[in-house]
């Protein structure tokens, strides 16, 4: 059993850490205020290969594995959790599903542009009545003239404002349990498709999350990704992978909360000494660090299993469950160590406290992770 990163992985982490500290962290507050990730930053990330991490070289991808992806997303999250999520979605919920399930034509059409960041993708599953109950998708895809007509809406679609390409799960048949669902590649300018109102959340304010509307939106037959009836399977497989990214993002949030709190505690004097010298503060930091390390190990183990071609659904769900709880635990204590200052928007921990909260909600709530784990662990 080897817990050490190899040289290439160490390098990956190092480079991502430098980007986080030098390019992301200094702009994170402004991104929150402007509610957007600036185009030049997205371009830079694309140029560095972060939008085609899993994709083969022939599409301009970096042909990296899940461990590299996890290390990168973790480091990026220390600088900007929102940017980390954009990178995570583009790779795990857009590039990867098209690479795995797409036809040769679909790959040729989209993957080079996805890798180059010319085409940002979004993943549209959630609806009003299909939150945790993902199989309950109502958006309809009716067959017509050799293509499909989409009608319905989607909620909470991350990157929707930026995206040129949407992976949309819609109902092609009445079968229960997700067997009637299919996945479609819908381009932004398709008639009948509207990117709607923006969602305003407590945190991750730079993320562009929106509602989608489909009104007699006609797509050709070759917009279907995978086979009819495979939509939920494709979505859930994508989410298995993206949960590694989500977990890594949560680890990064926790780690940065720790870093900020440690630095503050070392500099802040009360009762004539740095508060870091108080046992209670030390133990707070120790509990944070212990959980963060455990979360990181769970995450990297899930990534290593995925890279080895083994089943990793349970492990990815465990990693996401534990890491997101840990991010909130660490963000709360990190803020607490800052006292009144931590409650003010001038301090990074204030933003991390709000950003952390959604990690237990999106890409499957903690309850959904437990359902996944129970389903795998407790069957037969």
């Amino acid at each position: 059993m080897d817990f050490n990163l190899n040289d290439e992985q160490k390098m990956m982490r190092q480079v991502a850490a430098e980007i986080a500290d030098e390019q992301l962290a200094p702009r994170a507050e402004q991104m929150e205020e402007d509610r957007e990730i600036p185009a030049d930053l997205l371009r830079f990330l694309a140029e560095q290969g972060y939008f085609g991490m899993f994709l083969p070289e022939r599409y301009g991808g970096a042909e990296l594995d899940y461990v590299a992806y996890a290390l990168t997303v973790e480091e990026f999250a220390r600088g900007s959790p929102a940017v980390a999520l954009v990178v995570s979605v583009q790779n795990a919920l857009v590039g990867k599903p098209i690479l795995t399930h797409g036809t040769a034509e679909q790959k040729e059409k989209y993957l080079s542009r996805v890798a180059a960041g010319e085409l940002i993708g979004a993943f549209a599953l959630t609806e009003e009545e299909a939150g945790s109950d993902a199989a309950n998708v109502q958006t309809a895809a009716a067959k017509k003239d050799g293509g499909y007509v989409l009608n319905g809406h989607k909620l909470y679609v991350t990157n929707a404002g930026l995206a040129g390409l949407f992976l949309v799960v819609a109902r092609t048949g009445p079968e229960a349990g997700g067997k009637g669902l299919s996945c479609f590649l819908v381009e932004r300018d398709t008639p009948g498709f509207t990117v709607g109102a923006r969602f305003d959340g407590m945190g991750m304010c730079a993320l562009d999350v929106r509602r989608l509307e489909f009104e007699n939106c006609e797509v050709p037959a070759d917009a279907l990704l995978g086979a009819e009836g495979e939509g939920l399977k494709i979505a859930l497989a994508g989410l298995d992978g993206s949960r590694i990214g989500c977990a890594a993002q949560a680890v990064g949030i926790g780690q940065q909360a720790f870093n900020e709190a440690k630095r503050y505690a070392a500099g802040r004097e009360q009762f004539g000494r740095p508060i870091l010298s108080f046992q209670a503060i030390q133990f707070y930091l120790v509990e944070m660090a212990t959980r963060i390390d455990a979360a990181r190990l769970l995450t990297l183990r899930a990534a290593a299993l995925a890279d080895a071609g083994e089943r990793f659904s349970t492990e990815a769900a465990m990693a996401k469950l534990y890491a997101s709880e840990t991010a909130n635990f660490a963000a709360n204590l990190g803020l607490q160590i800052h006292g009144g200052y931590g409650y003010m928007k001038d301090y990074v921990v204030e933003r991390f406290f709000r950003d952390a909260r959604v990690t237990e909600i999106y890409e499957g709530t903690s309850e959904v992770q437990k359902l996944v784990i129970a389903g795998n662990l407790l069957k037969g």
Partner: protein
Amino acid sequence: MLDYIEYEDFRAGVRAKADEIVAPYAAAIDADDHIPDDVMKAVGKTGWFGATAPAEYGGLGWDTVRYVIMVEEASRASGSVGVMLAVQGSLIIYPLSKYGNDEQLRTYLPKFASGELVGSFGLTEPGAGSDAGNTQTAAALDGDEWVINGQKCFITNTKRDWPVVCFATVRTDPDKSKGVRGVSSIIVPANAPGFNYGRKENKMGLRGSDTSEIFFENCRVPKENLLGELNEGFKLFMVALDAGRISIGAMAVGLGQAALELAIKHAETRVQFGKPIGAQQAIQWKIAEMATKVRAARFLVYSAAALKDAGKPYTTEAAMAKYYASQIGREVAYDAIQVHGALGYDKSYPLERIYRDVKLDEIGEGTSEIQKIVISRNILQLKKK
């Protein structure tokens, strides 16, 4: 008295009023970072600003239990309004009633009671947070006037578009080695010469409850504005903070109650997997834990209030109430968000605001860490070597 059942009619009245005059404005107060005049005036009419002030000074003359129920219910409607009332009642009216002379009572109490004047409690400084003995702001007598110089930060109820009076904790004995034994409390109106607001803090939550820096630059007030005895400011602010802890605990209970009610409603009505999510055991247990925590915290708060009303020591109990209620308030708000999923994170829904608001209760008026110091100091009898 044990179950506080006799207060339930009283609570119902206060809750109905808070639902009518505060709750409808809570989202706007948060979004605009401002409590509008109409809300200030409507709250003023209820008499809640002066809940504990004696009737002869225009107060309602309520006991502490009634007062904290009011703070709880106001906070259930809006944390920002709740904290304003908590500061006014516990940190201003209470120490003024206890230590003010006749002249001070006549001058200030009726206006504080009506809400015509808002009181701010100027204790914290950049280098004196949990460590109040390190107060640097100094006051010296020049003839018949105090001349005050220094800086305060994170001061609540510094409402700039409203008449404000600050109770400033200042060093009146220049010998700094005396620590908290050399500080006094001085009444400083915000329109006194040399009183200047600095930055208004950009807070995560409790937006609308103004928090500011205050700069005293040769700020002059009459000698008579000394509140309580010279160099006994420590006693005054400790008494105020003890009382304040109960009301911050009440605030956390009110915010927790609001979150709990939303979670219950959502669990009953949100259908996933063909049934209300409340039919799932995981959600049932979450709700059970939340409800138990809120009830336990509420009784901790009321029992500290009842001790105060009975004239008994309550320092430990007030610290326990604040520590526990603020912790479970955050946990309950956290869980209520979880029950709601993405809706809980959505700014168009009240839960994310409640979660941001309640976090302050673990920090303001003594962090949880300070509460634990207070509690353990009163419980542990360590032999000195």
